[in-house]
């Protein structure tokens, strides 16, 4: 008789433990995603800083002040994914513009400072790519668990929803407009 009463209790306890551990695992994945987002923000900020320094070097050669070129790029805390994508695309434009200026002025291109900053830009871009891939990988894991049974039950009950990927914008896949 006692076993008949004990079995449902044991079963409930197992389900409870599973529910808690699944919920914790999903929450931990969310934290990792936020961490990866933060890495993306750091990389974007670094890229902005390095490009600003490059524009400082270029200012003797280009018509527009650097503020004009970079004023559209707004990096701030708590940006949405769309804002980040837009900022990244604008930084791509600025980078392409600087490279175009350097192609027209060989003395600029051969300057040691400019060359070192180009190396820094490449390194920062690789870090940005790594941060983006890490973020997408973590988002993919979370999204898979949100749609897969039985973890989908827990995800729905705690109000978790799928997170967006950091995708390349459609306009980036086309040729970049070089005019400012």
């Amino acid at each position, binding site marked *: 008789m006692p076993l008949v009463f004990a079995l449902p209790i044991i079963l409930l306890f197992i389900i409870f433990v599973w529910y808690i551990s699944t919920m914790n695992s999903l929450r931990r994945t969310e934290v*990792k995603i936020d961490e*990866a987002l933060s*890495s993306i923000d750091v990389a974007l900020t670094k890229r902005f800083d390095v490009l600003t320094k490059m524009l400082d070097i270029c200012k003797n050669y280009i018509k527009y002040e650097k503020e004009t070129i970079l004023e559209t790029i707004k990096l701030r805390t708590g940006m949405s994914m769309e804002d980040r994508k837009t900022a990244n695309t604008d930084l791509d434009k600025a980078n392409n513009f600087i490279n175009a200026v350097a192609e027209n002025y060989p003395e600029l291109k051969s300057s040691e400072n400019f060359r070192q900053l180009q*190396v820094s830009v*490449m*390194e920062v871009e*690789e*870090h940005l*790519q*790594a*941060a983006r*891939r*890490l973020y*997408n*990988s973590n988002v*993919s*894991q979370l999204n898979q668990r949100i749609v897969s049974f039985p973890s989908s039950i827990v995800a729905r009950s705690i109000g978790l929803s799928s997170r967006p990927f950091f995708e390349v914008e459609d306009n980036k896949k086309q040729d970049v407009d070089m005019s400012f």
Partner: protein
Amino acid sequence: MNEKISRLEELREKTVKHMLIILSISGLLALSIAFVVTARSYIMPLGFFLLFFIGFITFIILAYTTGCFKKLKEFKTQYKKIFVEVPFQQAFGQVFCDFDNGISQDIISQTKLIMMGNRYYTNDYIRGSYKNVGFERADIKIQRHTSNGKSSSTVTYFNGRWLILEFNKKFHFDLQIIGKGFYYSQKNHSFLISEKHRRYKIEMEDIRFNQLFNVYAQNEHEAFYILTPQFMDALKDMYNTMDGDFMLGFIDNKLHVAIHTRKDAMEPSLFKSVKDPNLGDVKREINTIIHIIDELNLDRDIYK
């Protein structure tokens, strides 16, 4: 060069003759003693035991005292100078070779990439550079020997070649990539290890890559920074072409490549003529180094 090869062949023949003479003397002596003992005691197993034991001891003593081992070592050294050092110089220019020594145990132990056991052998150290990428290589064997008085066993953790190469990206955390089939690696994955030194398992976004390799890193971001999609493609190609299970470790701004070939490469055979040497192992060694540097683009110096 032909003169050197002829002299080496003479040395080989002298060493073989010397060894056969010692073997014959040891054998005759052992046989005589074993026969006498067996005839007196009528215990056959004792006779067999004495035959092998006395034969072995006599052989060792005679080989040491008459300089046979010294000749053998001289032959191996000269062989490697001609058939290993020269091809390496032709492929890479200036190289430094020390065939009696290898990579020190401390260096391997500090990487914490592999279980160290209690026996460590290393030889055939070569240092050089290719496309301005410095490399070092050595043959390494790591074993654990246990004995409880009644029985003993030896487990080989690693037997193959170990490469250390300069890497073209700066990184601050350890990263380990273990090919499936490479056992006895040290992952530093346990929760008992402090968080500062612990490596965490990382799943990359390439499904096939995850099937072929396990990735452990102290920092997730650095793992994605080093393992670009192109790098992962190159590693997948290497998995199909490498002549053994392998593991990569990124430690202290150097890339370690451990290839478990299960043999000591580039060792000469005393019983084969050196006029027709088997250079397959040496060519494979050279091609492996070139392949790794080319496939992984280690010469890409945009960060230097």
